[in-house]
């Protein structure tokens, strides 16, 4: 994202991404999740959506691509590590989530299809 891009193209991607995140949020709410944070910024990176359902605390990475498979693949190992570190920082500031089991999810969004919520998409090696 920090790469230099023509402004218009960059804006288009940004809107596209925001629309995908809103869709993901709606989808999660429908499934009974409570949204705790969106675009949670930390010094280590950003988490698209943090949602909670019962004791499960889900850190959701939203990806919009031409196909769902491509969206899931787009979450690369460095991406995952960034999200894991961000999750740790984010969680450290909150007091109400101590009892929770963490989970890392991917919300894959592709045109013409319902969002695919991939639960427990990966597990951190060490945190």
């Amino acid at each position: 994202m920090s790469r230099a891009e023509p402004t218009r193209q960059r804006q288009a991607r940004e809107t596209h991404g925001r629309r995908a995140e809103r869709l993901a949020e709606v989808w999660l709410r429908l499934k009974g999740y409570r949204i705790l944070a969106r675009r949670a910024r930390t010094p280590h990176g950003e988490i698209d959506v943090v949602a909670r359902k019962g004791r499960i605390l889900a850190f959701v990475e939203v990806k919009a691509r031409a196909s769902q498979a491509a969206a899931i693949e787009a979450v690369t190992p460095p991406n995952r590590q960034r999200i894991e570190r961000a999750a740790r920082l984010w969680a450290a500031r909150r007091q109400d989530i101590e009892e929770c089991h963490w989970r890392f999810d991917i919300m894959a969004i592709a045109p013409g299809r319902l969002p695919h919520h991939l639960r427990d998409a990966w597990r951190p090696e060490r945190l």
Partner: protein
Amino acid sequence: MASAISRITTFAFEGVEARPIDVQVQLSSGAPTFTIVGLPDKAVGESRERVRAAFSALGLAMPPNRVLVNLAPADMPKEGSHYDLAIALAILAAIGAAPRDSLDGVAAIGELALDGGLADTVGALPAAMGAEALGLSLVCPAACGAEAAWSGANVIAAPSLIALVNHFNGTSVLSPARPGELESEPAVADMRDVKGQEAAKRALEIAAAGGHNLMMIGPPGSGKSMLAQRLPGLLPPLSARELLEVSQIQSIAGMLQRGRLSRARPFRAPHHSASMAALVGGGIRARPGEVSLAHHGVLFLDEIPEFASQTLDALRQPLENGEAMISRANRHVRYPSRFQLIAAANPCKCGGGAGAHACRKGPSCQANYLGRISGPFMDRIDLFVDAAPVTAADLSLPPPAEGTAEIAARVRAARQVQDTRYAAAPASRRPVNADVPGPEIEAACAADGEARELLTKAAEKMALSARGYYRVLKVARTIADLDGAAAVRRLHIAEALSYRFRSSQDDARRHATGSRLSV
């Protein structure tokens, strides 16, 4: 959230001893990591991946919790892949897939396959004995069941993790494993095949009867290896206690096939290129070496001068103490190694036989060649015998009247005499003449005046050391036992003296001075 802790016992191996390890699993909230602590080595650390894969094969996900596995005592290094099963069972109990109390009084060892099957693992027998000592029952892979059941412990041998889950939930109960069969006595070559070599055969018989170390010196083709290979047939089968000790070592070394124990004494013949670690034990997991695999059996070193001299000197400690100690940075590993050494050597580098093999360099050739073996090492050998070259006349003879069966019967009788004589001896030594300390052998010999006189004279002439003196007595005692004699007499001492080491130089000197010992 109240943390859920479940625990089960497993074992770490230190030598042949199984040390109990407490596997504790805690599930807690937080990031879903899976961590193993308690000094795991690479194979133990990788058990996370195997457990994860086996769980998914069962259709179970790893719990969405922080999973912490502690292997206590935490300061002892854990090696090997046999911790998988204990870790998996403790996690299963922690998540409620098996009743929490089902793991009470249970120990487990075994390696998991990715499909949830249980793979063969080494050390099942010592682990089962450890479990038995603690009053626990042992869960192990089906492949190890027959071996573990020998310990007398209650052994549950399961083919897979799912079978164990069903067992603990009571849906399909596994029956206790039964001990494997005793291996039928392997067919050993018969002594009858060896023509000629009467002196060497006699020496072998004495060695077998008294557990003495023997060295055969003879040119290539004189039948030294042939004779040595026939020694196991002469030795009595392992006693029950010896069988257990030997099997424990074989279990650690992964040599027991389908739990079949064998009462035949081990016969190990390492090649002379063997490294020190191969002989006395060592390597990454401090494995038992050849000296320990030959425990209560025979270690045959063919072409002994060709062994690296450092390697041979490393054998001195096991020979003396009956145990091999492997020192590591943070611990010592001990393996028992009470073996009988049979060595064979050519008289010199050229071969030293008659005709084409004859030595062309003179006596110094022999001195140089056999001189590679250090004096202290030679000092630990009780019997030296020359294996003369076999002549064509010997080969054309009819087979000798005596075979393995006849000689073995005499050896067994002599061993029985020793068994009763040393019944009160500590269990750490073999009940044979070779292992008896000096003062005790003197009493056991009850040598008469004539015999004593000969021994004193010989000791002076041959400049016997104290150790050499007692060695002659021990060999004489064995010869007398073979004779069925209660007391050691002059002829027994005389025969024992004939098995002392004489280099050809000694012979030459003796000829020169005209003072040969009458034998």
